[in-house]
């Protein structure tokens, strides 16, 4: 079966250290993390990646009041991606535009807020907001985007834990290839820092990072790593079939080369390096590439003691020692773990490498854990690569969902 070639033509994002691809990339190359200390309800101050984009750039104040933070993040990213792709809401076919947004979870923030609100009224449920249902339906972030930009094609979320950002792009690729849509706005978003539950949950798992310097707390592969920094954020892309993008003279960031999604079927939270390796291997094979053709591996590693080692084990199994031009990095060391947005944001941080051939580093590695000492790790300082033709992006999630997405340099 001949599959349409799918290309990335626009990027819109918000991360703790950047509200545009240029700002984000600049900070990744300059070693600038921006993790904050944030007051978490019932728990006090905790480390978090907080975005500072202006929601009113693309929303009315009433939309912000009625909608959700995930909706605002999604709208900001979608509008910025369209603008970056030089597409306007008037120029696109609204009924042929799909919105596919990866989420780790949705609704916890809004539910917690309502419970807190009615606690002020003796838990009398007549004070429960009539907005609770539209705010908490699982399709909320995608639906808010469609309301804001007025597209009438399919708009929904894809729940895939922390693999969700990749899943947004993968599903969009499939929908474009099926001819269901002509333009896809896709990626992932997260509002997770606004729910105490995720902080409390990771704390109970002993998986929440702590460090006196917030910007040093997220430290994948370092011996002293002690867990996850939770972040909010979003990255949405415009994806098009190659012929459509070429016809309108679009800038092409890269081409979807291959992907794989599989499941561990082994544990609720513990990763399975065997299944991860299968996922990576299958994605490489589907791309028609060999492991040595992958020039950047952006790892999922979240800085948990065991998770990082297991991903390294999976990478080692596929790439071994025979890939001298394969560079390995990690974006969470700058921005923390943006949950449903993680895969999409981390890919964005690496896409400019096709142009500048620079690999952004994994920062905060003072003492590399020997169990994570993969050849090709780019530590603390950016590295100039001889060439960057293919980027492999890993994103894994709870309940054993694994995703690998490969994007290659666009060549006619």
């Amino acid at each position, binding site marked *: 079966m001949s599959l349409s070639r799918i290309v990335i033509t626009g990027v819109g994002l918000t991360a703790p250290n950047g509200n545009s691809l240029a700002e984000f990339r600049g900070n990744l190359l300059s070693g600038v993390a921006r993790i904050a200390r944030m007051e978490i309800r019932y728990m006090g101050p905790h480390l978090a990646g907080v975005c500072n984009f202006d929601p009113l750039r693309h929303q009315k*104040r*009433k939309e912000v*009041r009625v909608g959700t933070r995930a909706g605002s993040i999604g709208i900001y990213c979608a509008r910025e991606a369209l603008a970056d792709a030089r597409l306007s809401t008037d120029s696109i076919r609204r009924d042929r535009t799909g919105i596919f947004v990866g989420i780790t979870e949705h609704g916890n923030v809004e539910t917690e807020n309502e419970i807190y609100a009615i606690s002020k*009224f003796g838990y009398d449920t*007549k*004070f429960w*907001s*009539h*907005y609770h249902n539209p705010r908490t339906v699982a399709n909320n972030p995608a639906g808010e985007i469609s309301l804001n930009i007025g597209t009438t094609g399919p708009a929904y979320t894809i729940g895939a834990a922390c693999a969700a950002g990749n899943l947004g792009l993968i599903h969009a690729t499939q929908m474009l290839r099926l001819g269901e849509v002509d333009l896809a706005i896709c990626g992932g978003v997260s509002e997770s820092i606004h729910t105490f539950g995720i902080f409390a949950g990771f704390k109970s798992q002993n998986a929440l990072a702590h460090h006196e310097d917030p910007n040093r707390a997220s430290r994948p592969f370092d011996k002293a790593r002690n867990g996850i920094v939770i972040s909010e954020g979003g990255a949405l892309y415009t994806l098009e079939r190659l012929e459509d993008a070429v016809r309108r003279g679009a800038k092409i960031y890269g081409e979807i080369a291959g992907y794989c999604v599989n499941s561990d079927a082994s544990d609720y939270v513990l990763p399975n390096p065997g299944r991860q390796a299968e996922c990576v291997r299958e994605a490489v094979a589907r791309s028609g590439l060999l492991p040595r053709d992958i020039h950047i591996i952006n790892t999922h590693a979240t800085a948990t003691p065991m998770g990082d080692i297991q991903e390294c084990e999976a990478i080692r199994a596929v790439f071994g020692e025979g890939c001298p031009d394969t560079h390995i990095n990690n974006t969470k060391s700058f921005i923390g773990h943006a949950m449903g947005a993680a895969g999409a944001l981390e890919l964005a941080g690496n896409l400019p490498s096709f142009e500048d051939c620079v690999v952004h580093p994994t920062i905060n590695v003072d003492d590399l854990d020997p169990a994570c000492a993969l050849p090709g790790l780019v530590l603390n300082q950016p590295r100039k690569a001889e060439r960057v033709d293919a980027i492999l992006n890993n994103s894994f999630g709870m309940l054993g969902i694994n995703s690998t997405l490969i994007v290659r340099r666009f060549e006619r």
Partner: protein
Amino acid sequence: MTKDEVKQVVLGIIADIAPDEDLSTLKPDVRLRDQMQLDSMDFLDIVMELRKRHGIEVPEKDYPQLATLDSCGDYLTPKFNALASKS
């Protein structure tokens, strides 16, 4: 409370739930929904905020009484005053 004071209370609520609207030209005798972007969920907001901020209950059958600022004043003033006399 006077009717004018009650109308100011309602205007304050409307200002919060419709922050993009210019309320300075609102005509007190014209239906609110005919003068501004106010959908059914916004309308429920007015009911909810009266409940939350002032302890005022508006049963569903009385929702039409909140159609204009004037009718809000007429309908709500006795409720505000009844509440004040209890406290």
